[in-house]
């Protein structure tokens, strides 16, 4: 393995102290800040989840009053989606996209700084809204009006936070698109890019498309609340359902914004540990692109009970079912990549396989939810909760864990503790299924979501689910310990820590990756 980079650059500008972070323009520093921010938001969102599960542990009201319970579910959703999952993927992109395409940094280094530093402001707005009069927003993370026109100043803080988060995401996306399209090493054609880069390119386009729509709809909500407009108020000639259409026009691409980069990560990890090239590279790219395009025409499947015309329901059912085809192609390709490989099962590989296994279960329940008559029964029940936690927790989050274990040796130059990593995987796997699998049954049997209390036939499954959730939450502290231990006292990692790795960050850079990498572009064979 040849390390072609000159580590000791002649003008190695390396800021120190607090200004290194406040005025950061280095993609590695900014990536690190994104990842730590998203992990701290993950703990906040996780705390809220623990509150929800503690209240639902037994029937009756024990610790959270109904209104506060609603604030917990609302903020849990918003913080996990916008504060934890999305920034984590942007952090991974910040670290990895320049390393994987052979670029010295992100295209717009100062804008990169700004798009990160907006996040803590928004996070603070969301968290502090719990302490204002009237409390935090309580209309669900989808904040449908007219309910969301009712809340207090907490709702306005949420709207403002969403504006800021949206601006941050759009800037991040523009940065990623520009970097990928303009800064690839000579010889790296589009169809030679690593799949993680491809999926992020497509995701970034989805972000640029979807986030302005979200910004628009929350602005309309804001003017409805304070400036006398009636976009969503039937008494003034508006339509509450209009909000849902616009929201989900953002919301469904958003779902894929949170899963396409995960596909990319898994497509990097599986070939590395199978020691075999990815099967069907080009069909993977086309499948990703078709999922992205389809994701823009399926939004109303979130609204089947709203009372659409028959033709509308049928169109959105067929379009949604169609997404199963490219998604299936991906799963088959991963399986074919593993087939006749020479596999080892380090922690990143475990998380990647866990991802495929549980994501497919989430995909099955997704197809079931796409069937309009069945969806009419399961809409707004715990079945839906189970479905989207299978794709967002064991999907997006597991892939992020996999990515962190996979690239940690490159980032820190040290190895994580393999035994503890595997323990983290198995505990997460067991507790996750314990928490969420039984929720399918709860939903089928008729337990609605977003209720602080439930009738008695749901009691035992809720208790199992809560115990699983507590276990899952505690397990994530182990992850924190593993990462800190790796940074502080991990064994030294090799430049090419993974035998089967083929991408530039492993083949052309030492571990840890130097503060300034690829100042001269790498040579591609």
């Amino acid at each position: 393995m040849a390390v072609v980079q000159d580590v000791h650059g002649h003008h190695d500008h390396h800021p120190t102290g607090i200004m290194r972070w406040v005025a950061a323009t280095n993609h590695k520093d900014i990536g690190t800040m994104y990842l730590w921010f998203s992990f701290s938001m993950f703990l906040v969102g996780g705390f809220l989840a623990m509150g929800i599960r503690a209240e639902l542990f037994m029937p009756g009201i024990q610790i959270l009053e109904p209104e506060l319970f609603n604030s917990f579910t609302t903020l849990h959703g918003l913080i996990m989606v916008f504060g934890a999952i999305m920034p984590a993927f942007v952090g991974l992109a910040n670290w990895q996209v320049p390393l994987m395409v052979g670029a010295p940094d992100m295209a717009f280094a100062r804008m990169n700084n700004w798009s990160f530093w907006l996040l803590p402001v928004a996070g603070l707005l969301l968290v502090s809204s719990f302490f204002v009069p009237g409390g935090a927003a309580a209309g669900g993370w989808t904040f449908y009006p007219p309910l969301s026109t009712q809340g207090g100043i907490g709702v306005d803080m949420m709207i403002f936070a969403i504006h800021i988060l949206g601006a941050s995401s759009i800037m991040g996306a523009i940065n990623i698109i520009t970097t990928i399209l303009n800064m690839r090493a000579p010889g790296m054609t589009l169809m030679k890019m690593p799949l993680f880069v491809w999926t992020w390119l497509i995701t970034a386009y989805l972000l640029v498309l979807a986030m302005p729509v979200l910004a628009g709809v929350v602005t309309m909500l804001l003017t409805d609340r304070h400036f006398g407009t009636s976009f969503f108020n039937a008494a003034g000639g508006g339509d509450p359902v209009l909000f849902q259409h616009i929201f989900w026009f953002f919301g469904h691409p958003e779902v894929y914004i949170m899963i396409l980069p995960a596909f990319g990560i898994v497509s990097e990890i599986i070939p590395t540990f199978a020691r075999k090239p990815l099967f069907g590279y080009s069909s993977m790219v086309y499948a990703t692109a078709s999922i992205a395009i389809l994701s823009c025409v399926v939004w109303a499947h979130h609204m089947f009970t709203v009372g659409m015309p028959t033709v509308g329901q049928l169109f959105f059912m067929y379009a949604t079912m169609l997404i199963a085809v490219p998604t299936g192609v991906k799963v088959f390709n991963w399986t074919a990549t593993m087939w006749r490989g020479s596999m080892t099962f380090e922690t990143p590989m475990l998380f990647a396989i866990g991802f495929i296994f549980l994501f497919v279960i989430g995909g099955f329940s997704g197809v079931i939810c796409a069937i309009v008559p069945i969806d009419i029964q399961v809409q707004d029940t715990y079945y839906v909760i189970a479905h989207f936690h299978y794709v967002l927790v064991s999907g997006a989050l597991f892939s992020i864990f996999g990515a962190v274990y996979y690239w940690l040796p490159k980032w820190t130059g040290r190895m994580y503790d393999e035994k503890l990593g595997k323990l983290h995987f198995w505990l997460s796997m067991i507790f996750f299924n314990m928490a969420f699998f039984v929720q399918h049954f709860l939903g089928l049997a008729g337990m609605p979501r977003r209720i602080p209390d439930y009738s008695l036939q749901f009691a035992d499954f809720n208790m199992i689910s809560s115990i699983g959730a507590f276990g899952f939450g505690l397990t994530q502290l182990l992850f924190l310990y593993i990462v800190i231990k790796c940074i502080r006292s991990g064994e030294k990692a090799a430049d090419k820590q993974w035998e089967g790795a083929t991408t530039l960050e492993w083949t052309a850079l030492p571990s840890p990756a130097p503060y300034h990498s690829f100042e001269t572009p790498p040579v591609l064979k």
Partner: protein
Amino acid sequence: MSSKSVAALVGSITLAFYSGMAFSSKYNFQEPQSVIARDIYDQHIMLLWICLAIFIAVFGVMFYSILKHRKSLGYKAANFHHSTAVEIIWTTIPVLILIAMAWPATKTVIAMKDTSEPDITIKATGYQWLWGYDYLQGEGEGISFYSKLSTPPAQMRNKEPKGENYLLEVDNNLVVPVGKKIRIITTANDVIHAWWVPAFGVKQDAIPGFIRDAWFTAEKPGIYRGNCAELCGKDHGYMPIVVEVMEQDKYAEWVAEKKKATAGVVTTAAVEN
């Protein structure tokens, strides 16, 4: 990772998934009480079998590979990475499976949407946090009442033992006759609610300022319970729906009694004026 633990995990999850269907409605949809609900129930079971078959096929291959194709067993990696034929096959087969799923679903959607020629039309209005019912057409026309949770707060606060129908009981049940096509018109007074009775396969959002509709024909007399299914604020969890299905003659009695009571109220009001 030990292969045995993987196999055990897969086995137990699959078992948990499918054992449910044979037993009680605790693991599955409530027992269907209308044509639509039965269609939904059957299609869901069909989908579970299809999913199980795909699951076994895909993960059978994957876990065989995980067990056999490992470096620790000295397995040398092959180097294939492309096969147009295989890729066309595994794109086409899912399309065919999806068509098989969509066909019966399409028929059910069309049937669900057919609210024409009802025997009785009832308007359900969502309020924060109770339901109002107005019998608009058919036998019982003119009857109108509110339906509110009747579980005592002491039970919710864990000061009294919880009753059998905890949170699923109301002061005035919605009463309908058996075997008649009931059209439910939904609307709301304040925020969006949703009128949901699982046993009839009906869930319809109730939107302020707008009218939507759904229908059901109950097959058996009995009491069927559901919940508001759209977050509507603080007491969203406390506005259940209880439908009491009666034999035709009992229903006629109920209508007569209800009318008499209403007439009494009207007369008193007139006298007072």
